[in-house]
């Protein structure tokens, strides 16, 4: 007896010391035998109206959840984007027998949760309350009562939410990414705006609900502490009366990736970080043959804290808190995205590294070791997901909805194990396309824009995901074309000073194609005009005496008629814009642009009474005309832009006259400098006489 006891003590002591002695901390412990993975199956049944019910009984906790959703095709919201979201909100804001307050109170009183969307209802509660919640859900579906007052509230809330969104770089990145990745031909690319919310009518919401929220494509998933028989009884009771109806189906063209990298930039002038997304659409359906290979490729590239993107951008460079990529498979259109938020200074470097890692996983075979770890990670994710009883339901539902093989999830680990390093590379080559990506950056343009240009064609977008030219700005309130002209005249010297003008002489010299050029323009009130140009022995003259006009050069003389005559008639008036209304001008304020030197230019479209249109730019600060662009048509029908820039004005008798002018026509550039500018020098009428 004693001996035995002693031996026991001795043995346990030995065991203790041996264990202590055995521990080698430098060795990573070996795992135990792999645990058995038990994958339950939900019980199912179908109601007569088509509603299919999945039940996962789990009595660990006394709670239950209900998910009901209608599996319809996505729909376009068009200029009413937001109405689907309004449908979801309206659903829990009124039934035939309860208003919003009553619904809210009923849900909260039993400590339940209830969420509705345009294609689903989710509720959860302690199982003792399951009847109340089940009943409320059926009430919402069977006796909806959408009302205007609630829609107005929803609209106001969402209009305010858009203002919050506008200030949030991540939210803006999301809507622009969707727009660019999925394009305008797929509902996934749509997003809400203030305008689209304003367009939403109650009828849109009601029609959508009555058309699409039907049982034929619907699933009800019940998970938790509720017996199968009880679910069956109550589902029949509460959802049996739900009427079926044919639901319209839709199809969409598969969005395509761009042919070459496209850079999209949204300017947040106060940003301290850039939100970067590299993305494009992919065609990867649930259950695709290479789905496991591409998911493993993505796991190595950018899933979680062991992906290459995280190692590179965060652990190697310290540029970001996190960098990740993801591959979404989808029945309609999937996507690849890589993303990170990085400080301004390293924005372009971070994108370059993201693209580099995308190229590397395509071009270089991964190692067997990398594949082993990625597989373990994926297997671990699968096993860990089984903690949640919802997982079994989710698997069963995917098998049903996407027509996957019945044993798809039973063989999940086998599918993972079957992937080779070559499979991963083949999938990477197919789905990871750094050369066909949208690169979306939301950040401080003044610090990042220039460095983004080498990465691809750069387009600016505003916070409503609309493209714009960065030198264009909004028109100040109350500003009109007439006001700009008024300020222009004042800046040139003012109406009274112009009224004093009897005649003007302007002589400019310059060079054209290495030849000296001289341009003389004489004007006398009310409307006499002479222009003479001499360049390299070539001479051209235009005269208008107030009634008739004549053009002459070395080849001869020609009386002006028709449009040419009208043209010179108009040019003969001193400052015709001064009386733009009586002279038959149409003015249209196009916008405001930055001139690149920190100053704003008002851009005005000026159409004269002959139908000639020019774009004229007036400096906001000085009011002066600084540039004029005209579209010129050559005799053979080609169009090109002729631009005249006024670099300087000179003051003559209180009137500002252009003293340095640059004219550009196609590749040709002529700079003219005033050599003689005179006002009221007493030009004689005879100067403008037309010699027959």
């Amino acid at each position, binding site marked *: 007896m004693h001996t035995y006891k002693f031996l026991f003590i001795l043995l346990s002591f030995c065991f203790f010391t041996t*264990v*202590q002695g055995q*521990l080698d*901390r430098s060795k*990573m*412990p070996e*795992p*135990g035998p792999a645990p*058995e993975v038990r994958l339950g199956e939900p019980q199912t049944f179908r109601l007569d109206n088509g509603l299919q019910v999945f039940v996962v009984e789990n009595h660990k*906790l*006394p*709670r239950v959840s209900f998910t009901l959703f209608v599996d319809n095709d996505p729909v376009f919201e068009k200029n009413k984007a937001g109405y689907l979201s309004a449908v979801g909100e309206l659903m829990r804001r009124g039934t035939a027998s309860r208003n919003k*307050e009553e619904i*809210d*109170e009923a*849900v*909260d*009183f039993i*400590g339940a949760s209830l969420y509705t969307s345009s294609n689903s209802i989710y509720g*959860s*509660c*302690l199982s*003792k309350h399951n009847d109340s919640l089940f009943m409320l859900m059926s009430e919402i579906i069977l006796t909806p009562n959408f009302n205007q007052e609630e829609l107005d*509230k929803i609209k*106001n*809330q969402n*209009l*305010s939410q858009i*203002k*919050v969104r506008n*200030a949030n*770089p*991540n939210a803006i990145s999301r809507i622009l990414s969707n727009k660019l990745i999925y394009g305008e031909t797929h509902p996934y690319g749509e997003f809400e705006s203030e305008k689209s919310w304003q367009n939403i009518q109650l009828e849109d919401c009601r029609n959508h609900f009555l058309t699409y929220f039907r049982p034929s494509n619907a699933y009800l998933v019940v998970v938790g502490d509720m017996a199968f028989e009880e679910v069956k009884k109550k589902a029949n009771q509460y959802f049996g009366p739900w009427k079926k109806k044919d639901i319209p189906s839709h199809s969409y063209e598969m969005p395509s990736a761009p042919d070459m990298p496209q850079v999209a930039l949204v300017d*947040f002038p*106060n940003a*301290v*970080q850039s*939100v970067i997304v590299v993305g494009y659409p992919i065609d990867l359906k649930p259950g695709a043959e290479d789905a496991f290979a591409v998911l493993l490729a993505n796991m190595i590239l950018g899933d*979680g*804290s*062991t992906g290459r993107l995280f190692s590179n951008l*965060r*652990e*190697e460079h*310290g*540029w*970001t*808190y996190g960098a990740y990529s993801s591959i979404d498979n989808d029945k309609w259109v999937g996507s690849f995205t890589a993303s990170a*938020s990085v*400080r301004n200074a390293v924005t372009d470097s971070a994108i370059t590294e993201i693209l580099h890692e995308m190229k590397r996983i395509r071009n270089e075979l991964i190692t067997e070791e990398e594949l*082993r*770890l990625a597989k*373990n990670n994926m*297997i*671990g*994710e699968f*096993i*860990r997901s089984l*903690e*949640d009883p919802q997982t079994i339901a989710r698997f069963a539902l995917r098998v049903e909805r996407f027509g996957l093989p019945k044993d798809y999830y039973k063989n999940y680990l086998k599918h993972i194990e079957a992937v080779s390093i070559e499979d991963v590379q083949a999938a990477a080559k197919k789905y990871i396309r750094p050369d066909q990506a949208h690169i979306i950056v939301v950040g401080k343009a003044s610090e990042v824009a220039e460095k983004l240009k080498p990465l691809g064609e750069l387009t600016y977008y505003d916070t409503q995901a609309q493209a714009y030219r960065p030198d264009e700005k909004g028109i100040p309130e109350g500003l009109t074309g007439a006001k700009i002209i008024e300020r222009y005249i004042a800046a040139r010297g003012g109406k009274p000073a112009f009224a004093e003008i009897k005649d003007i002489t302007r002589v400019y010299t310059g060079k054209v194609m290495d030849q000296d050029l001289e341009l003389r323009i004489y004007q006398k009130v009310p409307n006499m005009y002479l222009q003479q140009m001499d360049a390299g022995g070539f001479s051209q003259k235009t005269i208008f005496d107030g009634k008739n006009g004549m053009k002459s050069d070395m080849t001869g003389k020609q009386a002006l008629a028709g449009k040419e005559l009208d043209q010179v008639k108009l040019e003969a008036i001193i400052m015709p814009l001064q009386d733009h209304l009586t002279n038959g001008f149409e003015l249209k304020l196009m916008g405001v642009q930055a001139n690149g030197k920190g100053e704003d230019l008002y851009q005005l479209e000026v159409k004269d009474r002959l139908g000639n249109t020019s774009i004229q730019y007036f400096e906001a600060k000085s009011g002066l005309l600084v540039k004029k662009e005209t579209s010129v048509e050559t005799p053979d029908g080609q169009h090109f832009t002729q631009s005249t820039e006024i670099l300087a004005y000179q003051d003559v008798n209180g009137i500002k006259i252009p003293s340095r002018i640059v004219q550009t026509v196609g590749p040709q550039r002529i700079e003219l400098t005033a050599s003689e500018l005179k006002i009221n020098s007493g030009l004689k009428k005879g100067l403008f006489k037309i010699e027959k």
Partner: protein
Amino acid sequence: MNIIADKMKWKLFVLTCFLWAPAAFWAQDVQIAFEEYDLPNGMHVIFHEDHSAPITVISMLYHVGSKNEDPERTGFAHFFEHLMFEGSEHIARGQFDKIVNGSGGYSNAFTTKDQTYYFNLFPSNHLELGLWLESERLLHAKIDEKGVATQREVVKEERRMRYESRPYGTAIEELSKRAFTQHPYRWEPIGSAQYIDQASLEEFMKFYKTFYVPENVTMTIVGDFEPAKTKKLIAQYFGDIPRGGKTIPRPSADEPFRSREVRDTVLDNIQLPGVFMSYRCPGIGTKDYYALEMISNLLDGGESSRFSAEIINKQQKAIQASCFFRSNEGPSQMLIFTIASNGTKAYELEVAVNEELEKIRENLISEREYQKLLNQIENDFISSKGSLEGLAQSLPYYKVFMGNTNLINTELSNYRAVSREDLQAVAKKYLTRENRVVLYYLPK
């Protein structure tokens, strides 16, 4: 690697029958069986078995947070948490997560004002690996200049991402620095970028030796494991890690209640005004604490709550009106975050919030609303037991901060003990103008 701004809400409910129309409901509850013990070196261990899935969670709660920091080194505890993923004597730099993920596991961590919490979720055959990793972290973590330099930049990016780049993102910092004048709760765990740059390697080693010692950590194992075998493994991996032996410094600064309201305005890159408030409240575990938790639910628990029903839905003055009871080991904060709807001015929104608080101070809540609160708390409590990782957080939390692990089964009675009159009384006591900070966030 996260910073959890508000305390996880552990809400319990006791098994008592109560009556209300139209039907009587029995209480439903789940008892969480656990065992706990101390190693000779002072490390506390808590076990809870659950074999329903082949998963095990191993968590380590270090009783150190931003409140243990030098005011000239704010952000230190959280920065340190990042460094704890860098490597150890036997784990090369950058391998920590690779080992975890490569074994099918997941690990992460967060730092609050009171604690630094690490957790690992593994398929259950990797239990020993998890113990090894955590013992490496506790026994001989390795911190080098390269790691410090890198994590310095990473943490500054985290700060930019979570605080500076988010509309209203700085509100919590701005509130706390006005809510407390003496207590180290006056700064947030993310700390200041300036101090993050200044922290030196020696300071990290000193911090490590002071706080990362067995007597300052609680290990919790939850899920699919065999306790007897696991105890032996724990003895092997942790038994010979020496005690720190020194007294662990805990801040003693208390924070007097204010006698005057503090008001300020912050300009931010936003389009809609925000009104944010902080009320100084007592620490966790007190009776008033339970009452204040319930008031936070009354204001912002579900669509029928006072804020949602009145300010958002009826008056339409806000698009967001939330209330968080941010409980701390020391003085807590009742935080109110509201964002005005388009066209509503900040002061109009403030008036609406003031009115709701006044109603609670002036009137007893109805029997039905009181019952609703208890029902919500019951639901939240039972649901919180639905995740292994959740249990791995709450069990040591009860132990370390409330001194009683079994509160996971009994805490509900503490809520039940709060009467309608108590709710009114705490509202009168704490939700007063003198006891608060009010911040207006206005567009720049």
